[in-house]
């Protein structure tokens, strides 16, 4: 449905996007991960025709994206793009007009979505009087107001409280079930892990990893062992295949290991009487990300 091939964008001498390719099929969700300034928003902006790529192809339904096809695309920009002096209703009517919607259509859909998010009371409020989270919800409603087939969400969860995050997650899953195609970026790995089939990790404009999330996890050999108990840590650290041992709480350790074979070696070294808990975990997306990108990635 959406296909990006060899995308390149430079700002002056700096390469913002360096040869990125990916593909999203209908009814799938792609998560784009990357540190701040990695080039996520730039890719989205190029897809939406705001800025022009230096080279590469972006196809939607095997065609180039024009001002008319953008009617089928919903977009949530990273930084709020709401006019503060407008009321929620005015804003939606204006943006609806830009998507070739009549005011009736806007009204109908807007009420439906406001009810879905339980924020009907904000209909006539000025945007400047709304909280950051509520603005984000309005922004999301605007992105899906015209019933688009492709939805591009740039950091959709930023500024939301946990309950709202859950609400939004459910809506996204519903949209997916309806057959919408969704591309989104986030810095919260748990959201990505829960929603996406495919992921694309980029850093400084370059592709680090791209593919099916489960396959990526499978191919990633490293695992974690979580141990609770009074243990001689120095011994474990010397085992061949142990990468890192971190002390999380008193008598609670996290041991990073090369592969599954190391588990037995670790277990052998431990005094079983002192052991309270021992569990082997697959690497989380967060681990993979930190390992691949090389730096800690929490805001």
């Amino acid at each position, binding site marked *: 449905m959406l296909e990006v091939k060899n995308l390149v964008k430079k700002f002056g001498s700096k390469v913002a996007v360096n040869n990125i390719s990916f593909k999203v099929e209908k009814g799938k969700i792609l998560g784009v991960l990357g540190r701040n300034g990695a080039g996520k928003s730039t890719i989205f902006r190029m897809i939406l025709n705001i800025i022009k790529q230096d080279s590469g192809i972006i196809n939607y339904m095997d065609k180039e994206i024009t001002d008319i096809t953008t009617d089928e695309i919903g977009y949530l920009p990273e*930084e709020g793009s709401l006019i503060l002096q407008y009321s929620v209703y005015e804003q939606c009517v204006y943006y609806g007009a*830009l998507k070739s919607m009549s005011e009736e259509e806007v009204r109908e859909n807007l009420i439906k979505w406001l009810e879905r998010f339980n924020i009907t009371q904000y209909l006539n409020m000025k945007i400047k009087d709304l909280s950051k989270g509520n603005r984000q919800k309005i922004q999301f409603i605007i992105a899906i107001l015209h019933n688009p087939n492709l939805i591009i969400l740039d950091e959709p969860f930023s500024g939301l409280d946990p309950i709202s995050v859950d609400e939004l997650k459910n809506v996204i899953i519903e949209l997916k079930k309806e057959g919408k195609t969704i591309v989104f970026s986030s810095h919260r790995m748990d959201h990505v892990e829960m929603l996406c089939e495919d992921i694309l990790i980029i850093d400084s404009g370059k592709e680090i990893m791209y593919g099916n999330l489960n396959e990526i996890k499978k191919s990633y050999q490293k695992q974690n062992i979580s141990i609770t108990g009074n243990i001689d840590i120095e011994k474990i650290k010397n085992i061949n295949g142990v990468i890192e041992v971190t002390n999380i709480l008193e008598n609670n350790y996290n041991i990073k290991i090369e592969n599954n074979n190391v588990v037995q070696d670790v277990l052998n070294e431990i005094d079983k009487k002192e052991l309270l808990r021992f569990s082997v975990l697959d690497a989380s997306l967060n681990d993979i990300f930190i390992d691949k990108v090389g730096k800690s990635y929490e805001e």
Partner: protein
Amino acid sequence: MKSKIISVVKHTVEKNIRNKWFIVLNVLLLIVSIVAFNFNTVSNILKNNNISFGEKTEIIIYDEANLIYDNLTKMLEGQDINLTREENLKEYSKDELKNNQIVVQVKNTEKAEDISAKVISQEGVSATYINYITEALSKAKIDRLSKEYNLTLEDINKFTKTPNIERVMLSVDNKDADAKYGMQTIFNYLIFFILLLILSKIANDVSQEKISKSIEYVLTSISAKGYLIAKVLSINLTFIIQFIFTVVYLLIGLFLNSVLNMYFVTPNMELNANIDLSVLTSMIDTNMVIYFLVTFVYLIFTILILSVIQAVLSSKTTNISEAGNATILLVVINLIVYILSTFFVTPLKAPTAITYILSCIPIVSMYFVPTMILIGQANIIQVVISTIILIVSVVVIFKYGAIWFKNGVLDYSNKKKDKKQEETIDTQKQELIKREYSKIGYVIGFSVLLFIVLQIGLPYILSIFTSPINNLFNGKISLTNISTILRQISFILSLLVPALFVYSYVDKKSEDNLKQKKQIEKLNKKINIKESIKYVLMALPIVAIIQIVLSIILEKLGLDYEILNTVDILNLNSNFGTILAFIEIAVLPAIFEELYVRGAMLKFTKKYGAKFAIITTSLLFAIVHLNISQSVFAFLMGIILSIVTLKTGNILASSMIHLLNNGYAILLMIFENSSMSYVINVIYLLLIILGVLFIIIDFIKNKEKIKKIKNINKKTKAKITKNETGIKKYRYIAYDYTFILACILCTILLFTMQRIITILS
């Protein structure tokens, strides 16, 4: 794309119209147009039915010889005024007269030319009544004179009739050209008003959408060109709708007026309250109709072009006030073009080739072509060509405007951030140096601007007080002396204000160090004064040499060299005047020029290097004289004075040199051709000889010292070149806009000030 543009235009127009301010404005406009058209009629109707607001005006006339009473009654017939006659000449006090009463006391004299009248009222009398009274009085006067000299009224008419001038213009053939030209001027101001409204609205909308980053979302749905077209069209459409509404209100007002006239005005009532459209209709001919059509077309296209320019300009800014400045800029440009058009297109001059060329340029054509049509100077080829160019440029500007607009409006995000990231520490240091030195430029530039503005403006402001002060002293001081004093005050102020301005920027920390030094110096005060006198005497021969050499060079070049530019204005006839002249030429410059140049500016610039300080202050000293023939000498003298000031640490010595130099010149002038001038010359010569002696002594004394200092200097110089970026940093001074403006103004004034003064005086 079309359907999107239409839907955006529809939405924007709807939003603009369904706005409470739009409704308030329209109700106001309706009320204003109804009141404006009907006020006179209604008040006339009320008067005719003996209903009036407030009390009637009452004119009480004391007119013993019946000079004006009868005439005035005739003139005021039909107006709502009570005329009464008074038998006795009364003195009126404040409490005796009512607010609506006017007392006219006619003074009858034997001679007809002395007939006069006194008008007494509580709060003044409107000009119309005064006109009536004047008319009646002059009628009486003419009557009397005609009897005196046995002249008939016809004879007098022959005297007073103004000769008729028939204006025949051979290149221009339009009978109402003048009147139409006047009307068109009013029309142009209306256009400016419209422009201001439309452009500011566009500026506001664009910058609002840019700042809120709403544009980010907008551009995902519509191309930049489409957005630009939609925005410009919708705002213009809103305005056209408003315009049509206003016309409708005016028509409603007119209609109401005609209804009122039909039902309430009786035939014998005066018709002056009715709006007379015949004057307007008489002027309308084919030229006029074409004019309105062409103006409309040109106005629309020109506004489209200007709107796009405005949108592009405001897309480059990041706050609303800056976008507003762009509007002002555009309107001012239009104003300039309009003023230009008044020079090129007038009913009194046949158009030249330049006029035709200018009339083909878009925007300019708006002010040229319609006016030329109106006064019958246009030809068809010119109109067609300029129209085609106009339409083509609209298309072109929408195309390229869209690209520039898109670049500008998305500019906040990427490019600037990247540039900042790329900036190395070195460039940041460079930036800091640039900041610091452009600040110097600002201080110098603005102080010079202050000086120039005060120097030119203050004399004219103060000259208002010349005659009041003369009255205050009952003429004891002559007018020339007063104006001299005022000139001196303005001279003092124009130097003192910039001096204070510069002084406020002097680094106070280094000042503290100076204070400590000064305390030490205070102990050596006597020595310091001696030192100062020594420097003064040493400087005198050098100044004299410069003066002589320069006068020879300038004479050879054929430029007249005079030290005193105000010689002609000086009043040396009285003792007081002479003293004033001495103060003006010798004392004031010695104190206040030194305060500004050496006192404030040298202290300010000293921090940035002695050589730089000396050169800057000397240049400033040359500028302060605002006279090209003096400035060379002033510059050289400035160098000496600055060096002396730097050596002694205060302006005492330089003031004394300045005083001696100027005082010598003015004293010679005062005692021209008397034996005193000989004495003065001798004294001056003696001082110079003394100075030469001091120089020789000093030279011998310090020979060894100088050598040592030179060696030290060489060492420190090497260090300095290593540490600093050199002279290059001084160029940043010219990065300041006030400095550039001051430089331009100074260059112009140096060459023209002398001429301006001679013209004005």
